[in-house]
């Protein structure tokens, strides 16, 4: 087990002037489950592949534990790519399927047996060790594939979109298994996904990337509560946070026909930046429908039972229309075409500089 450190690590593909990963600084603690997340082309997979030794690091360095691995061959980095190969061999037992790579590496028979039994215990596969793969369920086969990585006792597990080729049901099941397994093993794990729900439910910390730059790396709760910029605010959370450019005055943000109160810290930060407009953010779940607040016209209503989603328009004094999404109590959903008033609850407003996207205030 080990820490992982990216220090100013940069990867520029030949023929490109823009780095795919730009001066990445990231420290991953021993035993931590870190998820790299972001839209397609953000550099998350490239970062993982740099750690795996599959991408050249053009500048900066990468450490696993105390050892710099920037120029070390993939096989000498003591890492394991999980699910790189999970076609199981039909004539080999579960134990043989799990241990075959160790046999190739010349590990002794006793040691292989020991490690396979240990891994099987963790994976609840012990009763099946002598069986052939055809006698296993889909989930058990997945666990055998995980076992192949576990028996190698690597310092770091790497997983690149490991659930992408599973159907929805098996994906949720395997997601839970991977998370609990990682907790039991305590092996430092770097996991790449484009799915923010997967990232938020699995990671101890989540690193959000965009255009090759690390945007924010923090616990899921901190990303949700205090996104450092408008991109992270919009990317984390489902449905996405409402982000609207609004005018501000001494009372707060002007939204539709009313004011949304803002903290002094926000107003102060906006003033010192010379802004009279900010990007106001509020999450669909942080609103309440009532008699006070700003007016919204209800366009579409989706009832999901416990919850309901409302898609509506807010019209500013100058006639500009902004579309917003609101989550509401499933038993108390306004009707389509209705005009309602909304308030942001608990002061859960977020404010960003419209030019830089950076957070204003606390």
């Amino acid at each position, binding site marked *: 087990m080990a820490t992982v450190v990216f220090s100013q690590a940069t990867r520029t593909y030949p023929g490109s002037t823009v780095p795919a990963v730009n001066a990445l600084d990231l420290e991953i603690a021993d035993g931590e489950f870190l998820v790299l997340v972001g839209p397609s082309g953000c550099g998350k997979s490239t970062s993982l592949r740099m750690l795996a030794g599959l991408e050249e690091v053009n500048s900066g360095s990468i450490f696993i534990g105390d050892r710099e691995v920037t120029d070390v*061959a993939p096989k000498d980095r003591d890492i394991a790519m999980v699910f*790189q190969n999970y*076609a199981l061999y039909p004539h080999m037992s579960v134990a043989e399927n799990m241990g*075959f790579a160790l046999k*190739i590496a010349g590990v002794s028979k006793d040691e292989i047996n020991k490690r396979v039994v240990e891994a099987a215990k963790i994976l609840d596969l012990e009763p099946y060790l002598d069986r052939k793969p055809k006698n296993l369920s889909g989930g058990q086969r997945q666990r055998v594939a995980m076992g192949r990585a576990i028996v190698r006792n690597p310092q770091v597990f790497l997983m690149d979109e490991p659930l*992408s*080729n599973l159907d929805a049901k098996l994906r949720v099941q395997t997601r839970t298994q991977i998370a609990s397994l990682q907790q039991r093993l305590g092996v430092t794990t770097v996991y790449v996904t484009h799915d923010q729900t997967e990232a938020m439910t699995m990671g101890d910390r989540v690193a959000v990337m965009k255009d090759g730059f690390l945007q924010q790396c923090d616990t899921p709760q901190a990303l949700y509560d205090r996104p450092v910029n408008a991109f992270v605010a919009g990317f984390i959370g489902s449905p996405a946070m409402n982000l609207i450019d609004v005018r501000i005055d001494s009372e707060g943000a002007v939204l539709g026909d009313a004011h949304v109160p803002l903290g002094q810290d926000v107003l102060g930060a906006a003033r010192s930046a010379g802004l009279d407009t900010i990007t106001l953010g509020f999450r669909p779940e942080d609103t309440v429908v009532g008699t006070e607040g700003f007016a919204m016209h209800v366009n579409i209503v989706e009832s999901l039972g416990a919850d309901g989603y409302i898609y509506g328009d807010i019209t500013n004094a100058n006639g500009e229309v902004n579309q917003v999404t609101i989550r509401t109590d499933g038993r108390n959903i306004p009707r389509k075409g209705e005009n309602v008033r909304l308030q942001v609850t608990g002061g859960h407003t977020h404010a960003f500089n419209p030019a830089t996207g950076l957070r204003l205030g606390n």
Partner: protein
Amino acid sequence: MAFEVTAALTDTDLLFLPWATPLADWSEETTVALPKGISRHIVKFVRLHGIVYAIKETQQPIAEREYDLLQKLVRRGVPCVEPVGVITGRVSDSGEELPAALMTRHLEFSLPYRALFSSTLRPDTAERLLDALAVLLVRLHLVGFSWGDCSLSNTLFRRDAGSFAAYLVDAETGDFQPRLSDGQREYDVELAVTNATGELMDLQSADLLHESLDAIETGKKIRARYNWLWNEITSPLIMASNERYKLDERIRKLNNMGYDVAEMLTTTPLHPSDNDIRIVMTPKVVDAGHHARRLIRLTGLDVEENQARRLLNDLDQFRLEIGLSTSDEELAAHKWVTECFEPILAMVPRSLRGKIEPAEMYHEVLQHRWFMSEKAGHDVGRLPATENYVRTVLVVKPDERAIIGTATDEVLENTQEMRLVFPEDLPDIDVRSN
């Protein structure tokens, strides 16, 4: 029944396959049983108007990405299966969403490794399989494709004049880069060794590996073969200015291995005062298939590289026999097609022609003629050799165009005659040393 189709379908009957049924439940009337490798997905084959298609169920983004990658590989001339289309938005009759399906055209005369040997995988066959796999990996790496899951199961093999030509079947884990780093290549080779060794161990567990073969030692050979070939093709040539012959030699060697030189980079010496000026040349090889291209230019025959080499040797020999010089190559080629190639194939009864690809059959006839002549102590001639070949060898062969309705095990039992084609004392036709 609802679904969407990506790609231009060559055969509209593909639209009428039972897309509302999970692939696993497609009936035996719809599908054809062909031998398959080890796969994590459900794969089935269908036959429409004489063409066999492979259908794989997987998640939509994966199917679409693989379709795209296969198209790029085809365009770059890498041997792989031909993508036909992606079916998405499948819904069962009961309204349940079904996975997407990727359709590829099955390669005629291609076989998965498990159908290439009789009761056990013998050392010579194993060596040729691994050779073919290493050649394929080098070709993929030259175009900037990292496979990510190179294995015998993800490859189909065609006979190629006693060797095998390998075709990529599964591109799901692959990725294109402008140029692969050493780390990416090493990792791919590492995976190839691990996967192929695992597959050999699996054969061993099923008593299908010849007792003289050590799975681990055999699997490791992929790395040596790959490294040797990669080095031969890409390592820089260092030569003095008066050593032009070295450059010619190198180009000839590359050509003989089935490669062309696309580009050369020269670097001038660091010390201009040095009389012994040395030039570093890096031949950049883009495409294999020198012999295949030469043969197609001369004869219009489109065949595998080693087959082309054998056929060209025969053509050259024929040209000498009829007393034509190298400048009459095209005339000789025309005469060779009409007087050698076509008459020999015409001697094969129509009912037996589907058994083996024409070029491979011609190669086997040449081989057979050599055996017969050696035994007889004199040349037995083309026509008697062909007649004997058809009577003793061809009739007992299974049909390789697409082995329909035969389980893998039966195929294994039916390929006993391979020993006739590849006797143990036959020198290996090795892509590496020619």
